[in-house]
């Protein structure tokens, strides 16, 4: 709480960088997970539809 006694802003740039790394990192990971899951589902769908055609 020493920052309350000082006149200049506290030097907290590293925490800001860490905060935004987490924010963008997690968003990118989620986007990647969406992309991978969607790609896998499309592959599954293609295989299943091929099997369905073969059965006919």
């Amino acid at each position: 709480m020493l920052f309350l006694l000082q006149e200049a802003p506290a030097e907290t740039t590293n925490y800001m960088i860490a905060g935004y790394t987490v924010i963008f990192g997690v968003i990118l990971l989620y986007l990647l997970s969406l992309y991978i899951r969607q790609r896998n589902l499309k592959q599954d769908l293609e295989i299943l539809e091929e099997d369905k055609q073969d059965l006919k």
Partner: protein
Amino acid sequence: MGPKPIGLKILDILSIVLLLIATWMVFFYAPTEAVMGNVQRVFYFHVSTAWIGMLSFLVAAVAGIAYLVSKKTSWDIVEVSAVEIGIVFSLIAVASGSIWARPIWNTWWTWDPRLTTVTIMILIYAAYLLLRAGIDDPGRRARFGAVYAILGFLSVPLTFFSARLYRTIHPVVIGTNQPGATGAFDMTSDMRMVFFFSLFVFTLFFADLLWHRIRMGHLQERVEELKLQASEGTD
């Protein structure tokens, strides 16, 4: 699943461009807060992600009601999509808040009312996903999910108002801070503009993500249908 609709393509581009602009504004347009310094810039996306978390759970509850009324599986897909996005954004809000707290509160974490209620909220929705995954029958799973999403939503206003009703170290943006709140600051007009712009951009980004996740949900439904047909055909 058909080709990507033009509306979704526009929303994708708009979300990326506006997110870049919001990021630029956070780092280069918003003034440095006089006491906390640069870490206060976490505020803009911390509150925006927390807002998206709560908005997602509201959407899930509304979709739950819509499912119980209509019995349409598309509402079940909206509901589970919203919950998934809500958990991701709530976790981002908690993690970024913890990093902001370290230099300001002198601790990464404290069990104060806001932090405790947000943890309970995330755990409630994480349990929703785990319990859903354990139910094979799609109809039963959707009914269970709808009721759970509606009841689970009770944790959202509790989390929102916890920093206003109880003695807490966590400051609030709208309303009066508790006497012990640490890290509060007066927003200048530039800060306010960046804050509201970030909220708007994240809301748009949420719509974009939800649309993508719903499309994936429909794809998943189709795959499950075909798997079921295939297993019935071999029996």
